[in-house]
């Protein structure tokens, strides 16, 4: 046993795996990994994530905002949202795959299902938290209900709404690693095929997923700053 935990020992190996193709025992001499492959899989992971997130947004955001605005369906928004977090993703993919086959059409909705709960719950809660006096004032100014949602409630709820979207993004990007089981070759390929890529490959896959998740998180944080109204920033500062 070396002085270090084996994980540390292979960290350098994982970086090497990302940068240059490596030998493998079971491929009959063909090298595996390397920068080109790493980029290809990372882009696929990103593509799957963006598609699933978009689908989750068009489903969950309007519903969450509407329910929050009406102040109704708390049980639906919060209960469904919380229950949704317990969905076993692998089972969903297996189920959808059994029904409609494999590929992006299966993986996208299955992953979107993972993003819906946090977006729905946060949109609902965010809008509910808006000061009723502000909403009444907007109504008094003659705004329509839709205008109130768009121009008053949503802007004020942005930090909470974006919190939900960020949570959803992390959940989706991390879980997109199981997509190779349903025909979409994401970074999960490195992680589930240890017999081919070895431990270095597994760790390399994990590192790349983590980097991608951090990048997306950073971008969304930036977007949140830009979307948050100056008045709101002053309030929290």
């Amino acid at each position: 046993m070396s002085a270090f935990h084996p994980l540390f020992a292979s960290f350098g190996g994982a970086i090497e795996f990302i940068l240059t193709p490596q030998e493998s025992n079971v491929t009959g001499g063909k090298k595996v990994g390397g920068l080109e492959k790493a980029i290809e899989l990372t882009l696929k992971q990103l593509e799957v994530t963006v598609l699933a997130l978009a689908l989750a947004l068009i489903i969950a955001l309007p519903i969450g905002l509407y329910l929050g605005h009406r102040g109704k369906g708390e049980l639906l928004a919060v209960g469904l949202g919380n229950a949704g977090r317990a969905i076993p993703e692998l089972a969903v993919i297996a189920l959808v795959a059994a029904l409609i086959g494999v590929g992006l059409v299966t993986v996208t909705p299955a992953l979107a299902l993972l993003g819906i709960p946090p977006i729905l719950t946060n949109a609902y809660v965010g809008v509910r938290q808006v000061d009723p006096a502000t909403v009444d004032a907007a109504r008094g100014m003659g705004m329509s209900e839709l205008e109130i949602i768009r121009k008053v409630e949503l802007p004020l709820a942005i930090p909470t709404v974006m919190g939900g979207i960020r949570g959803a993004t992390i959940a989706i990007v991390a879980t997109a690693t199981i997509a190779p089981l349903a025909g979409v070759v994401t970074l999960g390929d490195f992680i589930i095929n240890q017999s081919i890529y070895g431990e270095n490959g597994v760790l390399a896959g994990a590192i790349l997923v983590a980097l991608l998740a951090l990048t997306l998180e950073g971008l969304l944080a930036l977007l949140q700053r830009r979307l948050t109204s100056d008045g709101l920033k002053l309030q929290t500062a």
Partner: protein
Amino acid sequence: MRTDHTRLRIALAALLALALSLGIAACGSSSDSSSSEEAEGGGGAIVSNPENGNVNLTIGSKNFPEQEILGEIYAQALKAAGYKVKSALNLGSETVALRAVKSGQISGYPEYASTALTSFFGLEPEEVPSDANEAWEKANEEFEKEGLQAFEPTPFASANAVGTTKKTAEKYGLETISDLEGVSEKLSLYGSPECRQRIDCLAGLEKLYGLKFKSFTPVDISLRYNVLEKGQADLSILFTTDPQLSAESDKFVILEDDKEVFPAGNVIFVTKKSTTEKAGPDYEKTILQVQEGLNLKVMQELDARVELEKQTPKEAAAAYLKSAGYTE
């Protein structure tokens, strides 16, 4: 204030546009069938030995039905022999399983001799002996260098196989894998994620048969018949022990591996030498005894119970041990 709204609107519009670029389609249906037959075996009932009561064993297996059934059979048999037995039947791959044996997390697990030779000891598929005993001896020799050992092989052997529907086979006149020459470019192949790069799978088909496929799509092993039924896959990587092959022989066929890219593997139980010594003579004896009845027909039947009739591996294993007279 106004500019913030504009920004918000632009952002929402962008998200919406993104979302609209999605398309979702496809539909299908599913069907199932089943078959049942009693297993046969011999060797008499397992006798519980009180001396084994203070020996703890953990039986492992990889995480697909056939392996789980085997793991259960060994675990339940050893329990019947008086051992204290736990099981860990969800190990992801052979590398994980082997390491678990070496580190002592599991006492042993069933492995295909061919997989051991190619994956652990670097043999090319064509170098794997086709004789079960020869393959076992060769693997055991290598295992012994690492303080491990493999017990004698099971009667049945399992191998990967290129499978297709009867319809596709008839349409293109396919009987052997070599028949794919000239048509494989038009056919899509589905297999487990690791298949793509393995020499005893897609890489071997490309290298040793010189075949190029229209596409290769990785799917979970459990979907290997599903993709054929759905018409998504023209060809799918199956196992020769699959119960579907006998239960639905009018539907699925496997192509003969005329260049032997897919070495057949009998199952050998891999364990540590020191474990065998500690566990006493009943350990090896029990394992060899209960696997005696595992010929191809019985294994297919057990696989059918789990894959087609949705029994748990535990139930299937218990039924096998009972009907073969190993347990009450």
